[in-house]
Each structure stands twice: as structure tokens, then as C-alpha cells.
């Protein structure tokens, strides 16, 4: 009976350990899975013609003739959108119409001067043109359809006048006719609303399609292209088709979101069918295509993470990690050697060890401020370098941050080397230093590597220490260790708090975090492989 109970306990123990391991794996998958899949969408996604244009313009990739061909095809579909809007605008945007009328009047005045007419005729024509202009302005400003109609008809009387033939005034009649047509269909009382809705619609269409082909390119690269990704394009399409409003459903309850068709705002106008057109032809307008954007890992981002990849971030993170390890590893090992080999257990050693343990628990932002005040403001000027945040200062700060981890791991590793190895070495006539270098160090190396792995992971992911000492959100590829650099951790932090870009390109933020995780994973796997090979070599199996 007792044996039976013991067996049960043993089996329960085994099963529990298996369960716990499974749980850990499941947790990892739950935590990392969504992040990695979102991050992956920075690399594998559906691009649009705008993406291909952007790649060609900014990174010089792609076949020019093909892109031009595609642009031509999409422009054919886009043209209808622009035309519809322009036509509707004629009846709505009265300020622009007024401005146009005034311009025509000025032009006509100049034309008259060149004609060398007798002064009386000049005055008459001038007065007539002025009259036409004033009538048009009255019509544009009016809310009353009958008033508009009479004004327009007044204007159109002059149409057949011989004196106005082939002059700028023809523009007056064109304006008048177009306005008449558009006014017939629109509800003038809604005039103000239309202006507002149209502005919104136009800005959304620019977001979707980029600037119009006939307009000059905006100066910032961000505004030169429409939606480069199909998922974002779909989101903007939905924003075009639907408007969202937060309304109070019941008193003392949270607001609810109501979606209404944007077409309702333009009910009965020329714009109304446009929404159906965009919905049906969005694929012809943007030409989505599956894309594996591996250059994400090497591309610079232009500007502000909106387009491009995380090349500088990866390089910066690697540089910071490697340089900080160059400082932390030797200092850590020497300190550990002192603590284990060269000193007996006395008060000073106890104080040093307590300090190291305390340092390991200090928040990283404290190290960041220390780095700023010591390395950037004091140490670099002391050596004659400019006192500004740079890779060197950031690496040194990170090295100090990770020293406690490094020292403790190395200390444990050195302590775990059997005393007999040291005895054997000393008995063969080796000194303390030779014994440490030739016997203790090689035997402790796998353990020290574990410390390096822990430090690497910590250093690569730290944000706060580099905040003041060397990280920037935007900037060129680092060219020397006296320049500041971008890092993955600081980049994603900056996107989260810095501006609205993170909301516009969430895939990029997840991409950065996923790359960081993968980077740390790769470094760890590398270190683990090296460690196991070293272990095998030492122990011969």
C-alpha cells in the first residue's frame, strides 16, 4: 500500500513537471505569437501601386516601364474620381469661383489696353465687364435659386456680344454655365455642410491615392504617396465609405460608435455615385499585390518610419550591444577574478559584493542619467571629444548597467571550477596568473558565456539608459562611435509616445519589436551553440 502511494506521488510529480513545461511553452506562444505575427506583417504584406512608386522614387527599386504602365492604368480609373469632385466643387466652392471671376476681369482689362481702342469704347467695355463680374459674384454668394437664375441669365445676355468675342470674358460665360448646371442639382441650404464634407472627403482621397498627378509633388516624401499598403488602403476606403460618430446611447453609459454612410451627406448630388465607384474599383485604382519586403531589415526609413525599414536601428542596436560587451566582459571577468581568487573574505569584499548586488537592482533610468552626467558631460570632454550623446557614451552606460550581472555570473562560474584543477596547476609550478588564464578561465568559460548571454539580452533591449546618452529617433546610419544612433528599443518607444506615426503604421512598431526579439534570440542561440561546443570540447563527449 505504501509503495503504491509512493509510486502515485512519483508519477504525479513527473506529470506536474511536464505540465509546467507545457504551460511555459504555451505562455511563450501566447505572448510572442501575436507580436511576431503582427511584426511579420511589416515584411510580408500586400503592397499597392503607391508602394511600388515609393520604392522606385526613394530606393530606386523596380522596373520603371512597368511602374509607368501601372500608373497609367490606375490613373485612368482615378481620373473619374477627380473629375466628379471638380465638377461638384464648381457649384460649391464659391470663394474659388469669385476669385476666378476677378482674375478673368483683370485679364480682360489688360487685353483691352493692348487693343488701342478709343477711350469711350474702352470705358464702356470696362464697365460692362465689371457689371458681369459683379452679377456673377452676387450669384455665387446668393442662397436663392431664383436670384441666381436671374443673375446668370443677365450675364449670359452678353454672350453674343461681338466685342467680347475671343477675349478673356469667355471665361465668365463658362463659369456662369457650369455654376448654373451644378446649382440646379444641389440643395443650396446645405451649401455650408457640403463644403465641410467635401474637404474631409478630399483629404481622405489624398491619403488613399496621394497627390493628383497634375499637381506639383509636395516637398515631404511622406505626402508624395498614397496608401502603400493594402491593409491601410482598406482602412482608408472604409473611412471614405463610412463616417464614425460617438453618440450617447443612454444617460450615464459609455458612448457608442455609430457608423453612417458618407454617401448620405451627399444625397442627391453628383458625388453620391462616386462612393459606389470607389468601392467597386478600389483594386483597379491601387493594384494590390503580395509582397515579401525583405529589404525591411536593411532599408533606411524615410522620413520618420513612415516608409522604409529598420536598417539603422538594427545596426545601431548591434553596435551598442557589441561595444558595451567589449567593455563589460573583460571588466566583469577581472572583477570576478579579484572577488574569487585574489582576496580573502573580509569586510571590504563584503561591502563590494553588497554594492554589486544593489547596482543590479537599480532602475535603468538611473543609469541613463548617470551616463548623461558622467560620460556625456564629464568623461568625453575630459578626453577632448565633443560633449554630446554618442554611441561610445551609450555603450559605456550599458556596460555599467550590465556589469553586476556579468560579475555575478562570472563569479559563480569561476567558483564552480573544481579546486583540484587549480591545485594541479600550482603543483606543476604555475603562478596564480598562469593558473587563472590557462586552467580556471577555460574551465569557467561556459559559465561566463551564460553571463554574457544574460547581459546581451538585457543590453539589446534597454531603452532608458540610451535615452540621454546616445539614442535618437531619426537620423542617418551611424558612421563612427562619436555619433548618436537609432536603436530598435528606443525607436519603438519613440513611436509609441512621440507622434501619430505609430497609429498610422502600427506594423512598423510591431516589426521593430519583433526584430528586436528575433535579434536577441539569434544572439542567444549563437552563444548557446558556442557554449555547448566548448563544453563538449572540455569534457570530451
Amino acid at each position, binding site marked *: 500500500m505504501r509503495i503504491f502511494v509512493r509510486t502515485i506521488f512519483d508519477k504525479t510529480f513527473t506529470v506536474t513537471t511536464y505540465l509546467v513545461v507545457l504551460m511555459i511553452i504555451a505562455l511563450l506562444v501566447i505572448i510572442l505569437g501575436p507580436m511576431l505575427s503582427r511584426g511579420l506583417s511589416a515584411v510580408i504584406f500586400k503592397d499597392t501601386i503607391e508602394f511600388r512608386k515609393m520604392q522606385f522614387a526613394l530606393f530606386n527599386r523596380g522596373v520603371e516601364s512597368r511602374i509607368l504602365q501601372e500608373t497609367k492604368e490606375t490613373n485612368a480609373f482615378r481620373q473619374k474620381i477627380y473629375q466628379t469632385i471638380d465638377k461638384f466643387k464648381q457649384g460649391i466652392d464659391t470663394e474659388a469661383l469669385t476669385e476666378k471671376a476677378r482674375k478673368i476681369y483683370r485679364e480682360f482689362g489688360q487685353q483691352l489696353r493692348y487693343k488701342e481702342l478709343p477711350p469711350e469704347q474702352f470705358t464702356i467695355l470696362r464697365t460692362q465687364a465689371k457689371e458681369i463680374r459683379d452679377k456673377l459674384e452676387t450669384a455665387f454668394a446668393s442662397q436663392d435659386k431664383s436670384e441666381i437664375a436671374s443673375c446668370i441669365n443677365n450675364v449670359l445676355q452678353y454672350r453674343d456680344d461681338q466685342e467680347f468675342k475671343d477675349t478673356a470674358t469667355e471665361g465668365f460665360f463658362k463659369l456662369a454655365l457650369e455654376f448654373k448646371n451644378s446649382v440646379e442639382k444641389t440643395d443650396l441650404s446645405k451649401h455650408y455642410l457640403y463644403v465641410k464634407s467635401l474637404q474631409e472627403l478630399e483629404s481622405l482621397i489624398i491619403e488613399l491615392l496621394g497627390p493628383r498627378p497634375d499637381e506639383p509633388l509636395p516637398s515631404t516624401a511622406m505626402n508624395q504617396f498614397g496608401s502603400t499598403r493594402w491593409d491601410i488602403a482598406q482602412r482608408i476606403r472604409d473611412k471614405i465609405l463610412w463616417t464614425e460618430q460617438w453618440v450617447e446611447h443612454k444617460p450615464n453609459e459609455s458612448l457608442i460608435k455609430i457608423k453612417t454612410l458618407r454617401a448620405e451627406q451627399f444625397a442627391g448630388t453628383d458625388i453620391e455615385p462616386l462612393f459606389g465607384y470607389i468601392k467597386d474599383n478600389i483594386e483597379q485604382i491601387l493594384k494590390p499585390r503580395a509582397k515579401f519586403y525583405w529589404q525591411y531589415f536593411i532599408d533606411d526609413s524615410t522620413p520618420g518610419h513612415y516608409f522604409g525599414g529598420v536598417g539603422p536601428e538594427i545596426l545601431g542596436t548591434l553596435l551598442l550591444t557589441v561595444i558595451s560587451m567589449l567593455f563589460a566582459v573583460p571588466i566583469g571577468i577581472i572583477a570576478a577574478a579579484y572577488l574569487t581568487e585574489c582576496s*580573502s573574505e573580509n569586510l571590504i569584499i563584503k561591502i563590494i559584493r553588497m554594492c554589486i548586488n544593489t547596482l543590479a537592482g537599480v532602475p535603468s533610468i538611473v543609469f541613463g542619467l548617470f551616463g548623461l552626467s558622467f560620460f556625456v558631460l564629464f568623461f568625453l570632454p575630459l578626453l577632448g571629444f565633443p560633449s554630446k550623446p554618442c554611441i561610445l557614451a551609450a555603450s559605456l552606460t550599458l556596460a555599467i548597467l550590465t556589469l553586476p550581472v556579468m560579475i555575478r555570473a562570472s563569479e559563480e562560474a569561476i567558483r564552480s571550477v*573544481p579546486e*583540484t*584543477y587549480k*591545485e*594541479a*596547476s*600550482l*603543483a*606543476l*609550478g*604555475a*603562478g596564480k596568473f*598562469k593558473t587563472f588564464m*590557462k*586552467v580556471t578561465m*577555460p*574551465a569557467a568559460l561556459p559559465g561566463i558565456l551564460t553571463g554574457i548571454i544574460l547581459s546581451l539580452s538585457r543590453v539589446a533591449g534597454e531603452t532608458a539608459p540610451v535615452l540621454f546618452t546616445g539614442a535618437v529617433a531619426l537620423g542617418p546610419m551611424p558612421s563612427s562611435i562619436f555619433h548618436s544612433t537609432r536603436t530598435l528599443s528606443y525607436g519603438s518607444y519613440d513611436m509609441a509616445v512621440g507622434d501619430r506615426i505609430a497609429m498610422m503604421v502600427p506594423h512598423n512598431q510591431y516589426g521593430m519589436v519583433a526584430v528586436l526579439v528575433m535579434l536577441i534570440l539569434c544572439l542567444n542561440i549563437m552563444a548557446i551553440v558556442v557554449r555547448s561546443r566548448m563544453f563538449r*570540447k*572540455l*569534457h*570530451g*563527449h
Partner: protein
Amino acid sequence: MKEEDKNMQQSALNTEKSRNMKIIRIERKQTPTPKSLDSDCSNCAVISSDDFSFYYGSRMGVKNITMDIYPCSVTAIIGPSGCGKSTFLRSINRMNDLIPHIRTEGTLKVDGQDIYDNRINLISLRQQIGMVFQKPNPFPKSIFDNVAYGPRLQGIRNSEDLQDVVEQCLRSAAIWDEVKDDLKKSALALSGGQQQRLCIARALATKPRVILMDEPCSALDPLATGKIEDLMEQLKTSYTIIIVTHNMQQAARVSERTAFFCLGELIEYDLTSKIFGNPANKQTEDYITGRFG
């Protein structure tokens, strides 16, 4: 000893000499030819201990040891646990220096030089007096690197010279035939007996005059023990061996002289045949016959 080996040692010593002139070193003497077991060779003792006492802090390790150890023979030290055998053995190459707060009294001379003189060079002392430990403790390196460790410390860098030394030492330690094909293999992959013989080979590689063995067979099976004992038999023609053992049959088998320690004191020291056949002291007799305590 071969001619080339002597040259090698000489060159190694010369480099050491030029490095540190002030330090007194144990000079290597021509290994004397084996003499008879008669007591008239007392003037040629390699190690002579005169009223030597050793303290760990205030605790006594060994007290008033006076004994001479003769070259080219095996001297066994026997006695119950905690009697100071190992302490005495480890005093001879000053391995006890690793322990803090130690203190000695009296003198312990190697070749007439007091080794507890402050100016003594520990490195050259330990190269003269090799040591084999209770548990086989090869370094976690290849077999070759284990044996080449000592010669490399002495400044031999030439790979052919190293090869020669390693082969010679492994042959002397009777393990060459077992490992000659994979010298690159990790020493930790060897069996316990092989590891111990490798440790002996490693100790031989520094060309010592004296080899201290601290219970070298206690972790080995009888077969491996037999091999080590045969090895000692061969080695004693050119080395002075001091062995600490709990196995009295072993002491009787391999040694010329035996010292019996008890409670930190040397009770009796004489030819082995006399100790085991006709001990002068009652305590010795009790211990040997198993009536002790």
C-alpha cells in the same frame, strides 16, 4: 636521463634565472645513482626535516617531525586519518600555502635549502617536486595539452620538442600505448586509472626530482592500482617518490622506507621490512596488526 633532456632543462632554467636573479632557487643536481638501503647514505638525503612543525592558525597539523628522505627510493607514510600525513606531504612543495593563516616551526630542507625561507621561489620549487593527488584531476583539456602544460610553463614552445616530451612522459607513465592514437581527445573522457596515470605523466613532464603521491590509488580499482604500483617500481630508479597511503599492503609492497604518523607526530620511521616485520614501537605494531584504537 637523455642528453637532450638535460639541455632542455638547462635552457629552461637559464631563462628563469635571467628573469629573477635575487630569488633563491632549488638548484637541480645530478640525480645520484641508487645506493643501498644502508643508513650510511644519510648525507645524501634529498629532503631533510628537522624538528618541523606545522600549524593551521592555532590548530596543530604536524609536530616536531625529524626525518630524512633518500633519493631514488619510495618512502611510504602511513597512519590513521587526521594524523598529519597529507599535511606533511603538502608542506614539502608548499601546497599548504593556499590555506590562510598557516605557521611553521623548525626547518624543512630540500637539497640543503630551507624551503620555508621567504625568498624561496615557489615556482621552481614546485617544478622540482611534482605531485599526484588523491582524486585523478586532469585539466579539462586534451591529453596532449595536459602533459604539455608543465613544459609550456617552462617556456618550451617548439612543437617538436613538446611532442617528444609528451611521448616520453606518457611512455614513462605506461599509458602511451592506450592513448597514442587520440592525443587530441579530452582527458576527462579517460577512465579513472588512465586519468591517474595521465596525472603522473603530467607531473613527470616538469622533470621533477621528487614526486609526492597523496593516496594516488584510493579512487581506483585493484587492477588500476596494480598498474600504478608497477609504474612506481619503474619510476623509483630515477625519481624520489613519497607516497601517502591508507593501504598497508601497498606500503609494504612498494616502499623501501615507511614512516608511521599518529596524531601529528612521527612515531616510527625505518626500513619497510623492519616496520612491518619488527616494529620498535608498540603503537606501530598495534596499527599494523589492526589492533589500533
